[in-house]
């Protein structure tokens, strides 16, 4: 009896295991190399990681380069800028994405130099407009100046019919209800860039940071963009997120004041910002900029996220060097920037800047 019943216990187990093996033996239906369209010669696997703000852009670029080079696999782990830089410095990542430029505040630049054996390459790659979204009953359009925005998000302006808001929206029927500003409860590059904008505008006392300042009372937090999107279901709420997410979820966006006019977030308006910004690079390989948040130039949208790519000028392994070079060149190419713009809603880089970046990347060996 006993042996038979143990055997009977084994039979379904083995069947299940074989079944699982049989299924896993074949790959995903869309992963089988089609072999027809790809003509690229790159092959192998490269791994990078970093800022999660770039995640969608990276997904588009990875798809693009893999389609062109069927034998190449690119992995981008959206682990966060800090962990991305750490991974780059320790050699775990061949390239990295970061929302704040590599500097020597914590000795990261020096360590990166040691890892690369030369000044690391740092180029802007991903510029994305950040939309300020709102949900107020009976209000479809909202114009705000930077100071008022800072006042709202720091909790000083608490009612929708506050004179500061009414001043820029003379025609809107603003209700006498509470404003609930929504921020990100996680650490985020979008938030860091948004607070940078608020700080530059004045009326914002806090240090710009990816984490929402603990000292600000009130408001509401959301986990990730998705969290902010859910929060925006509430009436009287105002928040910020990638412009693409705002569009995707049909949220009304605020026009912010630039100079004398009010500008709606758009890829086009955002892409003009880099040209207006000052370079703060620490070496010839470093294209870091200080974003001109306070620009008054017409048609420029200054609430943007600027995210960088990190790479070494030289790699020990020639295949790695070719792959990183090929991938970064693709990202910075017109095609790459267009792809990201379509899929992730980012702003294509100004060609002048992109060409300069391509020059740096093209020297990778």
């Amino acid at each position, binding site marked *: 009896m006993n042996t038979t019943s143990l055997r009977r216990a084994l039979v379904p187990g083995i069947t299940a295991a074989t079944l699982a093996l049989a299924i896993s033996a074949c790959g995903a239906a869309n992963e089988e190399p089609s072999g027809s369209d790809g003509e690229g010669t790159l092959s192998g696997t490269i791994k990078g990681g970093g800022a999660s703000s770039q995640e969608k852009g990276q997904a588009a670029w990875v798809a693009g380069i893999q389609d062109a080079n069927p034998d190449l696999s690119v992995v981008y782990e959206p682990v966060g800028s800090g962990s991305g830089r750490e991974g780059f410095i320790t050699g775990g990542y061949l390239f990295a994405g970061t929302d704040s430029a590599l500097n020597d505040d914590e000795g990261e630049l020096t360590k990166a130099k040691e890892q690369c054996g030369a000044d690391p390459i740092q180029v802007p790659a991903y510029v994305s407009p950040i939309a300020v979204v709102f949900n107020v009953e009976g209000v479809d359009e909202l114009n705000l100046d930077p100071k008022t925005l800072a006042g709202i998000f720091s909790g000083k302006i608490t009612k929708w019919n506050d004179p500061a808001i009414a001043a820029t929206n003379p025609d809107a029927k603003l209700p006498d209800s509470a404003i609930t500003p929504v921020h990100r409860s996680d650490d985020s590059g979008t938030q860091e860039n948004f607070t940078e904008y608020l700080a530059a505008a004045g009326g914002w006392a806090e240090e710009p940071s990816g984490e929402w300042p603990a000292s600000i009372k009130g408001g509401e937090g959301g986990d990730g963009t998705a969290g902010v999107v859910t929060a925006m279901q*509430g009436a009287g709420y105002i928040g910020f997120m990638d412009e693409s997410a705002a569009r995707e979820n049909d949220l009304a966006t605020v026009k912010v004041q630039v100079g004398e006019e009010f500008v709606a977030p758009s890829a086009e308006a955002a892409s003009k910002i880099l040209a207006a910004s000052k370079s703060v690079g620490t070496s010839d390989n470093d294209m870091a900029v200080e974003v001109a948040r306070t620009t008054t130039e017409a048609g420029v949208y200054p609430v943007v996220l600027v995210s960088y790519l990190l790479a070494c000028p030289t790699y020990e392994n020639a295949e790695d060097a070719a792959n990183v070079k090929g991938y970064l060149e693709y990202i910075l190419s017109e095609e790459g920037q267009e792809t990201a713009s379509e899929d992730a809603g980012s702003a294509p880089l100004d060609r002048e800047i992109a060409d300069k970046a391509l020059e740096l990347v093209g020297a990778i060996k």
Partner: protein
Amino acid sequence: MTVAADPGADPGVDTKSELSGRGSMGDVVFRGIAVIAATLIMVALAAVFIFLGIEGIPGFSVDEQHYAGQGSFLGLVVPLLYATMYAAVLALIVAVPFSVAIALFISHYAPRRIATPVAYVIDLLAAVPSVVFGLWGAVVLGPYLVPTHAWLSENLAWLPFFDGQPSGNGRTLFTASIVLAVMILPIITSICREVFAQTPRLHEEAALALGATRWEMVRYAVFPYARSGMVSAVMLGLGRALGETMAIAMIVSPKVLISLFIIGTNNPETIAAHIAQGYKESTPDRLSVLIATGLVLFAFTFLVNALARWIVARGRAK
């Protein structure tokens, strides 16, 4: 010893029976394996402490900017710990009466025909992933409860829980504790159900034979028998509620603070949710702070469980 074909043979003849056996290697080996497996559990728990310690202890004293604006590790972890406990207790308050009632329903009240499928469905729900609960809580239940929030804030504001500006989208600890309660309900229910079902029939029949109503039978025969089982069921539910991560992270609008208020836009943040939210975008220093809070959470649940065991054991000894 070989087996002779004829068991009827006179056993008295076989006088040279050998009593000293061929040793008990099998027993020694098998017992050894069992002991090793059991000891592995101790090793595993120790390893959890050790490895979280190695990676987390640096997090007790890093630069103050990494403590989410709270200045120090204690300043961060005390409110988090408070919120963890608070959310779990709220969930238990909602879940326990329902769980016990449903368990009773299945074991003693419902007709067999209903009880079996109900029990099955409840078991099934124990396995619904917490992301799905989170999704449902944030997208479906939260907005649905907005009027309830407003009502509570208008009518029950004399309670500190409801005293303040209500949330406009339901992403509150109030919603989260209901979702959390729904999540832990199946666990508590299934254990209670089992212990209720194990009440000796004799006790139940004895109670009925004395003329007890069904409720009196439950009260005097079932509950006393099941008490320690019920306590451990509640503890298991508490454990799950303390450690629940995704659902709370997805539903609640959190802030590191100590407050009783549960229907506003700033809700106390729990340790697990804090880790999950901080984990995605983090520097090595921040990561070690998060692992350190994880260590604290582990130590805390360890203590709570140990305390619960002790209470159960004392209850049994009496």
